[in-house]
């Protein structure tokens, strides 16, 4: 018989097995993958998050779509595209792009910043469960911000005639990098930290 303190039990992120926290280096007893080291996880998460946020700036400044119509070339930024769609009455699509490209990334930045700060400092009187739900939500909705990148890829593959063509703009790369690093940041964040400090 061994005595186990329930609060020290941790969940392996890879296979879901319950493990005992044995200090610095934890190896899952079932799948043998290492369970995140809590001492480094916020630093990594911060680094990815900041990279993602920096990449988000050019993603909004440069054109994401360059369309050529009868010799006239025109580039449109993410926000410009949303406004164009809205003015032309495509409200649902304008909303989808607005949510996927602006609301979700910004919300993700804010939630991750909030969670990362709340791990270090006793910030927010929210319940633990709320914070976990918040984190889980960012993991689920986060990938959906890739919509705009895929839309641009589809449009540029579909429309390239001699007269009319659509080409992806520089912002696509910046945006894809931004989404990629925000996802990495969320994965690097250790949800266990929420439990320990609130």
């Amino acid at each position, binding site marked *: 018989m061994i005595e186990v303190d329930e609060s020290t039990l941790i969940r392996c992120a890879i296979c879901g097995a*319950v493990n005992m926290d044995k200090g610095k280096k934890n190896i899952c007893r079932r799948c043998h993958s290492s369970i995140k080291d809590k001492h480094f996880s916020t630093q990594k998460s911060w680094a990815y998050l900041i990279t993602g946020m920096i990449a988000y700036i050019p993603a909004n400044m440069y054109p994401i779509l360059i369309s050529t119509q009868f010799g006239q070339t025109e580039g449109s930024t993410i926000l410009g595209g949303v406004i164009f769609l809205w003015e032309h009455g495509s409200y649902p699509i304008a909303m989808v792009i607005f949510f996927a490209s602006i609301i979700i990334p910004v919300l993700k930045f804010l939630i991750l910043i909030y969670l990362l700060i709340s791990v270090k400092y006793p910030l927010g009187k929210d319940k633990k469960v709320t914070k976990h739900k918040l984190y889980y939500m960012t993991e689920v909705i986060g990938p959906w911000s890739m919509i705009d990148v895929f839309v641009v*890829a589809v449009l540029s593959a579909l429309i390239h005639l001699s007269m009319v063509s659509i080409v992806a703009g520089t912002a696509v790369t910046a945006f894809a990098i931004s989404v990629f690093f925000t996802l990495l940041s969320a994965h690097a964040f250790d949800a266990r930290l929420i439990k320990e400090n609130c």
Partner: protein
Amino acid sequence: MKLENEDALDNYIICHQCLTLHEEIAIADGSHACCTGCGGVLYRYNTQRIDHGLALSITGLIFFALANFFPLVQIEVLGTEQFITISKTIFTLFESGFYLVGLICAFLIFIFPLMIFLINLCVFALLKAQKGKKITKELLVLLAYITPWSMTDIFLVSILVALVKLIGYAQIHIGVAFWALLVFVLIDVYLVKRIQIFEIWMLHKRIFAHKDEV
């Protein structure tokens, strides 16, 4: 709490959404257990899980092949016909110099989804044959790493968004591959979101409990 030994921890489960600790209990065939903290599903129990998983991964692979060999959509602009396939979408990005985005897309909408289904197929086949305890473990670990990076569902929605943008400018014909991709996405959502990796580990444990490590 007191435990017999460390392996007795297998009788416990931590909710993946809110990290509340629960003791695993036996539930009826076809039902599921919910978390007391957040209400999310903890695990399901189904005696036909392996057969379902096997059938679904094979069906999924067939539809994925269909989705790749035929055009997704065809449009008519100014009298010219244009069509796209999954590979054409990726190659256009490469051709216009967006190597990084092309590479990311290739992984998110082709390589990872394909790998997920192949791994699922192998895992369920091995579990069915009750062979390969070690390789199943390794496959399950790999599966856990790539699962968050498969985005065919998002790609499907993106195609629809792109098409709606083109309404009024071009005549649109939805291709066979689009429907195949839709079926693939539905199976993917079912396989990945419903049959959680945790449950496959539970099966793994039940099947290999009395077998020695080879």
